């Protein structure tokens, strides 16, 4: 069955969202979830895990021409499962085990028969924890919002 262009785009967006959740995951949490889910822990390492740098870019004035403003550590890995799927991972930081597990999760996610399990057992809990943390932070920031009120002085 050949996917049409639209389905392919949707699938890419879903895979990107999965990789985003993995990249944001605290390493310990990811390790715990993978263990509990009983994921196949071994896969052939095609690359890494290896740590390197990315140069971080901003834009002049916020929206103008790009400029480089520093570097960040990134660790990446590429694996191949026994069933043939190749998975990649990239994430800020230097945790090699996190990179390896994320690449395995990415590879498993590409197999339609195992995608639901990855979504439910790994990505779901990660997203829930992340959005809870974001919400808390947003609410804490909102509490520091200034409410201006006008002081009326004198007659009319």
């Amino acid at each position, binding site marked *: 069955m050949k996917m049409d262009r639209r389905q392919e785009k949707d699938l*890419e*967006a879903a*895979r*990107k969202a999965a*990789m*985003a959740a993995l*990249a*944001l995951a605290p390493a310990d949490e990811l390790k715990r979830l993978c263990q509990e889910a009983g994921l196949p822990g071994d896969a052939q390492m095609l690359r890494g895990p*290896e*740590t*390197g*740098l*990315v*140069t*971080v*870019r*901003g*834009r*002049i*004035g*916020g*929206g*103008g*021409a*790009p*400029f*480089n*403003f*520093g*570097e*960040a*550590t*990134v660790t*990446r890995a*590429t694996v191949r499962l026994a069933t043939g799927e190749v998975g*990649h991972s*990239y*994430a*800020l*930081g*230097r945790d090699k085990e996190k990179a390896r597990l994320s690449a395995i999760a990415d590879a498993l996610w590409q197999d339609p028969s195992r995608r639901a399990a990855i979504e439910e057992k790994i990505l779901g809990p990660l997203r829930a924890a992340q959005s809870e943390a*974001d919400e*808390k*932070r*947003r*609410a*804490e*920031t*909102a*509490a*520091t*919002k*200034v409410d*201006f009120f006008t002081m009326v002085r004198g007659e009319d």
Partner: protein
Amino acid sequence: MYVAVKGGEAAIQNAHRLLADRRRGDRGVPALRLDQIVEQLALGVDRVMAEGSLYDRELAALAIVQSRGDLIEAIFLVRAYRTTLPRFGYTRPVDTAAMQVERRVSATYKDLPGGQLLGPTFDYTHRLLDPELANGGEAEEPAQRDAQPERMSRVSEILAQEGLIEADGELPDDHVTGDITREPLEFPMERDIRLQALSRGDEGFLLALGYSTQRGYGRSHPFVGEVRIGEVELELDVPELPFAVPLGRIRVTECQMVNQFKGSAKAPPQFTRGYGLVFGQSERKAMAMSLCDRALRAREMGEDITAAAQDEEFVISHSDNVQATGFVEHLKLPHYVDFQAELDLVRRMRAEHDAREDAGVAETREAAE
């Protein structure tokens, strides 16, 4: 005569061993853990990341411990470490309008969309030491208020509607983004390269220069259009994937400085801008950076260059504290041969000087007789 000598090997070894001991201090005091530094000395960590030009909290914390809290030494360690890693590429430019905002204030608009969010700020504190903290004082849980996620547009977009402010800094389409970690500095330089140097420049140096512009040395009538702090997402284009791969988030501080500008031969009266973007929660640095960015645009604006802060070569060549400390501190290393040569020279000059003096005295005496 000077005879080459070598030595000091044992002294150096023992000095380093002594340093390790003094760094650890009293063994009766528990050793610091990195997570304690990351959590409780977070702004020191942010400064090391910004000026070390490497976003990695744990490494910055390690550098702070190893350097006994000497932040410039820590920045040096981080810069050195950076050179050992391969480079995977350049991220897509961060979108600060999509930031998860933790603080956002404007000094120019009271009622801007999204409002004034004070966040975790030292502003409005009384700067009184808190003796409770000496005993580990516990903090209350922060207050919370319902809020929906929203995209917080930048304050510059408000003024842009009236056409009274210049646009975000554009460079020609064929301009290739410069990178001071790859190519040596050349003057004059484009604004993108200047901003890269300023973003990792020494906070104290840029603060002093920014201050000097406020005191009249290259005055630029600044207002803080906006300062915002929060997390932005990073994405990297890689050949093995058909989309930009998400890397996670980093915390940055952005400052939009708005400056009055009465116009010149090149531009009509309008507001101009200085820009600051720095790793971590580094408000003072982002503000100083934006003041310096604006001052350094004097040439582009057709302004007279009269002050230190407007002198690109002066500012950019001296803003890097690793370079600065390297050159200043190298003076304490052995210069025995150089000094020997200088000593000979001064002795000779002094002898000649004395000889001239003596001859002069003799002449005057003869003339008097």
